[in-house]
């Protein structure tokens, strides 16, 4: 699904990713944990094609294609989805219009027919139910006036509509109450198939109770310094990053 080799990236000349290697197979769930500022969102942003980052070395191959060569929109059309840590508000653009335009762009790329307003509504209503989205969501402007938790759920709702091959969730769990967390987990799990993969960026174990990872990685100062099975997440939750930092210092 996604193979990252020796990925280096910097912002304004400052190196933030300092050689990342990661291999995610179809159907797998990977979790990335790590202290604040370690580069988790930067990795997500580099993969999703944000302009602010300069990739200085390495490669990322997504479904056999060179991901780093593609524009952000091409990556999305190819089936990569990033649920943002800080979703953007877009006043004046309704969720309805935004999502339909988005879905049709993706469908067109896949060679599928574009959906008219009625067909779109039918499809979307179903997904809204799964995620317990409020009835008036579609009429409201994208994320405008949404609470932190509502924004996060809206990201997962978008993901559910677009049905990506690889979903990257950047701290989607933070700011969610228990019910919302459950809804988000259900949304992700509803999407899971043997061909779809998920990369979960989180600080906490609790989302991983619902979306069980095949592998857990620790990102620290721009490198993956430790990888392990799902138990690694529990370990980190109990002991924090200090033992790992100490181990590196030796």
């Amino acid at each position, binding site marked *: 699904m996604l193979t990252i080799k020796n990925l280096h990236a910097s912002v304004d000349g400052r190196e933030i990713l300092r050689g990342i290697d990661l291999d995610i197979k179809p159907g797998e769930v990977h979790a990335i944990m790590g202290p604040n500022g370690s580069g988790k969102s930067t990795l997500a942003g580099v993969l*999703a094609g944000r302009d602010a980052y300069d990739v200085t070395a390495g490669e990322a191959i997504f479904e056999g294609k060179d991901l780093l060569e593609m524009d*952000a929109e091409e990556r999305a059309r190819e089936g990569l989805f*990033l649920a*943002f840590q800080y979703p953007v508000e877009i006043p004046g653009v309704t969720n309805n219009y935004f999502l339909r335009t988005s879905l049709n*762009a993706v469908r067109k790329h896949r060679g599928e027919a574009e959906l008219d307003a009625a067909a779109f509504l039918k499809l979307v209503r179903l997904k809204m139910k799964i995620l317990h989205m409020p009835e008036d969501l579609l009429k409201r402007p994208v994320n405008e006036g949404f609470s932190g938790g509502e924004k996060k759920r809206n990201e997962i709702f978008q993901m559910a509509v677009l049905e990506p091959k690889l979903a990257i969730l950047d701290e989607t769990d933070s700011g969610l109450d228990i019910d919302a967390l459950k809804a988000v987990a259900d949304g992700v799990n509803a999407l899971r198939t043997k061909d779809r993969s998920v990369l979960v960026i989180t600080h906490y174990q609790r989302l991983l109770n619902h979306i069980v990872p095949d592998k857990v990685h620790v990102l620290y100062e721009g490198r993956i310094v430790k990888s392990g099975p799902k138990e690694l997440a529990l370990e980190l939750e109990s002991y924090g990053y200090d033992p790992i930092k100490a181990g590196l210092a030796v």
Partner: protein
Amino acid sequence: MPTTAPKTEANFAQRFDELAPQLAGWQMPWIESLRRDAYARLQKVGYPTARAEDWRFTNVNPLIEKDFSLPTQVEDATLDLASLGFADAIPGSRLVFVDGLASPRLSKVGATPKGVHVGTLSQALANDGSMDAAALVQLHLGRYADGERLAFTAQNTAFFQDGGLIDVADHAVIDEPIHLVFVNTASVATTPRNLVVVGKNAQVRIVEWHLGAAGLTNFANAVTEVIADERSVVDHVKLQRESSAAYHIANTQVVLQAKANFTTHYIGLGGSLVRNEVRVRFAGEHAEATVNGLYVGEGKQHHDNHTVIDHAAPNCASHELYKGVLGGSSQGVFNGKIFVRKDAQKTDAKQTNKVLLLSEGATINTKPQLEIFADDVKCTHGATVGQLDENQVYYLRSRGIGMEEARRILTFAFANDVVSRIKLEPIRDELERLIVR
């Protein structure tokens, strides 16, 4: 061609003595003196130069130097309004003026409620016109818009050929909008003049259309006077879609009596050189005005917007939202004046001005101007000038939407903030279609 003036003739505005006797109502002494006074005023103040504070950014020389002539007869035999951008299916009565002259063929005035008069100014001022209509015009015309220093308004008063006369009697309510449609088909000068008189507790909706065939270099000098009596409700929209080579200068003057409620939306899409002024004077207490505008410039268009909100009475509220979208090497000007006079206590005035610059070459000069002489008032103003938000563009792209489309969606959202406030749904729909493009 509707114009008969030979090319070598001077600009119409220099031929008052020759042209005036042929203009509407000249046989009436009061019209003759109205026109003569206006012409004398024009001579006295002269056309604005760049040294005039209010005209610093707008050069009107082409309008003075070019040999524009006034049309002498209406040429509407083969004209198709829809092809010029009029939404033909739209409900409501319409008065159509082709190159400034009334077109009975294209006009359509349905049965209006009792007490509502929809006609042309030229009719009212004709020898066989009704005494009532002429008396109404005499009572109001030129009493509000003709400020001492307004050269172009003086030019219009001296030379106006025709326009709408709408009279809504006390308590009369007309639901369907009344359309004043000015279509241009020749590169001539036009002098549309509208008079809207709304009685106590009456309600009316008016849509002004200023349309032009592509490529025309016509010059429109339009003046509209609106008098809204106590407790009346007036909703006004002006849709300006002249050709992108046209000159459009306009002054909309509104006077509000106590408890009147007035809303206007100016949508400026066309024109090469546009100066649109909206002036609202609060003459009675507890009146309310909403003054909104949107101008969209591309290529080399020049959009100059001046608004003057004159709080001359206490306890009135004004809300103003102007937005500009400027691409290419277009230029925008926004000057929003708010006066709060000494006695106008408890005034609530709000002005917001936002500009979206879509290209490096586009420029904007914007200036709020608040002059407050009362002490117990609430006045706020805010101005922003910016580009599209990169984070928003990226967010849309991250969902598969292409760069161009993302920019288009965000530009539309910015502009639609004004359009969506227009109450008349068919006009809103029409504009959404136009702005999406």
